[in-house]
């Protein structure tokens, strides 16, 4: 039996098609992935991403546990601010990527991916932190797009969070934690609130957002929106034991800490001799997960995510390659036929 978010019936009543994802039945679209994609790029969209995880990581060892399991220093993160990072396995490969917010010196709100709550919780508990898993009682909504800010302002008089900060806002009578974060590359916020009261908040946002043409958005557009911005999706880009150096996440690394896998990661960083996650654009055919990447007939890697960009109409992909750099010509094998592609910098749009 699949899990359902608190908004399942609302989604069904508004034309959602559901797909199973990480144990949940989630809306993949409400009619058109492309239309939802454009709505977020040009106006605003509301996503129910309650399948994502929520952990309270607390106690005197909370900061130290995060410093061991992520290549970051929670002590230098200002109170009320968040940090995008990766949760590392002991060998330095990525267990998950996550945002954590510093609510107090000994109290952090951690948002792992869907279905990663147990693994990430266990990892932090193993380093001596207290971990409370509130994933199943918490809803998460993402309000994203150029009009997200004005919709939030219409929904509540409370002050909105600054970029990557976390604040409390009362919306439709419900106390919500709200962060200035997202997964679309657009301006916006993410809201964390009690699942039991979340329908009132969702409906209030849809109502006040109606004049700005706020649309509900499914996982389909969530995926194309993040891919256009070159953001990693844990199940795709981290599959098979990838390190943050390979995944192009060297920018999240704070090398001062004593985190798991540090020496291996530093070695990798210094040698440069490793697979690298790159962007690809392709004129013909659509690259998809698992398609081989070649150069001059020799295999050099494979696609991890690919689609036709709804914004540009071009085929775009992320993939791991060995020994190819931005500007290089490669081929992506689409159903047995090598199609010319170019390694590019991300974001794609």
């Amino acid at each position, binding site marked *: 039996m699949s899990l359902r978010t608190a908004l399942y019936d609302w989604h069904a009543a508004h034309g959602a*098609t559901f797909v199973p994802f990480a144990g949940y039945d989630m809306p*993949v679209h409400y009619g058109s992935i*492309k239309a939802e994609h454009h709505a977020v790029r040009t106006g605003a969209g509301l996503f129910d991403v309650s399948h994502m995880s929520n952990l309270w990581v607390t106690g005197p060892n909370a900061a130290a546990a995060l410093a061991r399991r992520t290549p970051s220093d929670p002590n230098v993160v200002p109170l009320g601010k968040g940090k995008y990072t990766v949760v590392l396995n002991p060998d330095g490969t990525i267990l998950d990527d996550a945002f954590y917010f510093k609510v107090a010196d000994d109290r952090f709100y951690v948002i792992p991916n869907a279905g990663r709550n147990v693994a990430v919780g266990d990892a932090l508990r193993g380093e001596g932190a207290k971990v409370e898993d509130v994933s199943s009682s918490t809803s998460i909504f993402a309000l994203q797009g150029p009009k997200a800010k004005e919709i939030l302002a219409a929904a509540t008089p409370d002050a909105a969070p600054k970029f990557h900060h976390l604040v409390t806002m009362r919306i439709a009578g419900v106390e919500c934690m709200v962060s200035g974060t997202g997964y679309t590359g657009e301006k916006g916020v993410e809201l964390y609130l009690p699942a039991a009261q979340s329908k009132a908040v969702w409906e209030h946002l849809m109502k006040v957002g109606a004049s700005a043409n706020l649309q509900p958005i499914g996982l*389909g557009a969530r*995926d194309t929106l993040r891919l256009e911005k070159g953001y990693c999706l844990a199940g795709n880009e981290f599959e098979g034991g990838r390190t943050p150096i390979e995944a192009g996440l060297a920018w999240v690394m704070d090398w001062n800490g004593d985190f798991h896998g540090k020496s291996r990661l530093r070695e990798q960083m210094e040698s440069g001799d490793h697979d690298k996650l790159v962007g690809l654009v392709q004129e013909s*055919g659509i690259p998809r997960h698992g398609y081989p990447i070649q150069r001059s007939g020799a295999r050099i890697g494979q696609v991890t995510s690919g*689609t036709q960009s709804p914004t540009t109409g071009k085929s775009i992909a992320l993939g791991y390659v060995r020994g190819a750099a931005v500007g290089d010509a490669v081929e992506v094998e689409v159903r047995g036929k090598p199609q010319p592609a170019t390694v590019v910098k991300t974001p794609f749009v």
Partner: protein
Amino acid sequence: MARADRGEGAGLEMKALKWRGPVARAMSNTPADLLYSKSHEWVKVTGGEALIGITDHAQEALNDIVYVELPKKGETFEVDAEFGVVESVKSVSDLYMPIAGTVLDVNGSLDESPETLNEDPYGKGWLIRVKLKDPAQAKALLSAAQYTATLH
């Protein structure tokens, strides 16, 4: 059509043709004068020839179609052979021959406007016209009512 797709994360398969959408979605258009395959192709037989496309249910389940790959004129396919590919934003689906034949014509306009498959699957969104190997094979296809019954 068969599914071979990939969505948000390792766990997300679109399963577009086995979606569990709301009841309203089940009321897709299934013209009574066509024949159907379980793999969601339609066939319009006229004498020794047939026009082949995908059903309204299929286009709706696939969602926004962005790419169609069709065979060349003169290619011959047996029943159930893969004759092309339809890609939506998030999925790749093979097309299977509902009836054996040789391709007489392909709908080239789908190269430029694949969205026609969403907009008019039984009309401007036809895929190929074939010369039938054995028109009697049509007897093995489903009626509109039989096809609709497979959707529930």
